[in-house]
């Protein structure tokens, strides 16, 4: 508890604290301090979805990533209509458009009523403009995640080329770290 909370001048908002912890658990924000996290929080867009509501569709332009505060989200592809994966509280998805602004490679649908926070490229650009130090930290973290994935893909390709092993078997060797789970290129 900080000094203002101790004096009763600041309300201790449990949900806010929990959400800040959630933010810190996301690799992109894991290196940020308390004030920096508060700056990020200010530019997040809070959205609420009912069960079955589409969050974004495959092939539509992507503007940024989503962080699930509460609820469950299914990730589907148009051709299969089967759930590729299901994400829950504290997990995030669709972070690559933050960098390349590319289109979505899958559809995200709320499986249960969800409270989600959106972090988008225009806001990231504006943040970089007014707080370059914080912006660089976030972009470096994003670059690190992409670098990690590239290494994983390289390892897979290398294994396939040298051993001719089927991808299913090699996938286990290059499984992403726990911190990377929940993050998908959408």
């Amino acid at each position, binding site marked *: 508890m900080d000094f203002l909370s101790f004096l009763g001048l600041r309300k201790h908002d449990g949900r806010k604290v929990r959400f800040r912890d959630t933010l810190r658990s996301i690799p992109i924000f894991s290196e940020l301090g308390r004030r920096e996290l508060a700056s990020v929080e200010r530019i997040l*867009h809070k959205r609420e979805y009912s069960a079955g509501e589409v969050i974004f569709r495959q092939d539509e332009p992507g503007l940024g990533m989503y962080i699930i505060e509460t609820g469950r989200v299914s990730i589907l592809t148009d051709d299969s209509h089967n759930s590729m994966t299901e994400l829950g509280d504290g997990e995030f998805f669709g972070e690559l458009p933050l960098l390349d602004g590319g289109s979505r490679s899958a559809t995200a649908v709320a499986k249960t*009523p969800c409270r989600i926070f959106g972090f988008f490229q*225009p806001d990231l650009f504006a943040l970089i403009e007014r707080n370059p130090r914080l912006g660089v930290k976030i972009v470096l973290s994003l670059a690190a995640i992409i670098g990690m994935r590239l290494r994983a893909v390289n390892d897979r390709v290398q294994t396939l080329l040298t051993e001719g092993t089927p991808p299913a078997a090699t996938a286990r060797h290059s499984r992403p770290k726990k911190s990377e789970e929940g993050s998908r290129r959408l």
Partner: protein
Amino acid sequence: MNPARSLVLNRWLAFSGLALLILLLLLVPGVVKMIVVAFLLAYIFDPIVTAIEVRGLSRTASTVVFFLFVISIAWILISILTPVVYNQIMTLRSGAGSRQTSEVILRLQAVVRAKLGFIGLGEVNLQEKIEQFSAYLSDTIVDFILHEGLSIILYAVTVPFLVFFFLKDGREMKKMFIGIVPNRYFEFALDLLYKMDIQLGNYLRSQFTDAVAFGILATIALWLLGVKYFLFIGVFAGLANLIPYVGPIAGALPAVAVALFDAGDVTLALQIVLAFIILKLTDDMLVQPLLVAKGVHLHPLLVLLAIIIGGELFGMLGMLLAVPATGFVKVVLQESIVTLKKYRFTD
């Protein structure tokens, strides 16, 4: 409350609030003008406040620093310019130079009588007519300044107040606006707003800088030529330059009128016309390509129509804001169409 239900309730509340606000604004049109002017000014000055924010200050502190800077500049300008403005108002009211004017008018009347007497213009009393018009004009200007004082003060207080809050809380206001957009159109709206922000920001800032540059150059040129009321006419020329085609002529006319009727100097009038031609060419070939490179291209016919409609609806302010408003509508439509094509709203 479950998230979906609270979402619907919040959205209805937000829409009702917005509808009430729009209704209120329509009922009080003066407020709309103030808000539009303040919004445009906040839009123009936003990058300066952001530049201060980059130094590590909070948004509020940056806005306060910016306002302190503007107030200091205004204070310096007021203390320097008050005597000049006072003299110019008094000269305008007393109709100084009337002796010279009378001489010019008498000469002109003699020419009219000699050359155009055969068509019945010999008996016309030019001096009386011009004096009547001149008295009406100077009285109207001075009366406007004196009697509209309350309204001017109201604008002078309210507009900066609104600009302050638009600058300080503009980001939150934008976020709140985005917050009421339904989920399906949310990313589209954000994308559209971002693109519009860039295009419109560039356009408004370049127009404003161009008007300031033209105003300063016109004031300097008129001062060098020794034209009376150079400050008023220079500021007016800068503002008028915001209106394409009509603006530069409208800006030069008062200076020419002062040269002819106040100083009675035809050479000076010609020098002023030449100065304005040079100024306009400099503006078109040097200032505009540098500043308005990223502007919105509007068809000349559309610009003229916009100016006429703006003038009909809101007078001088309407004419001034007609082109930025048309640019705004064009950007909205253009970006909406481009962005809309990328989203599958029909699915």
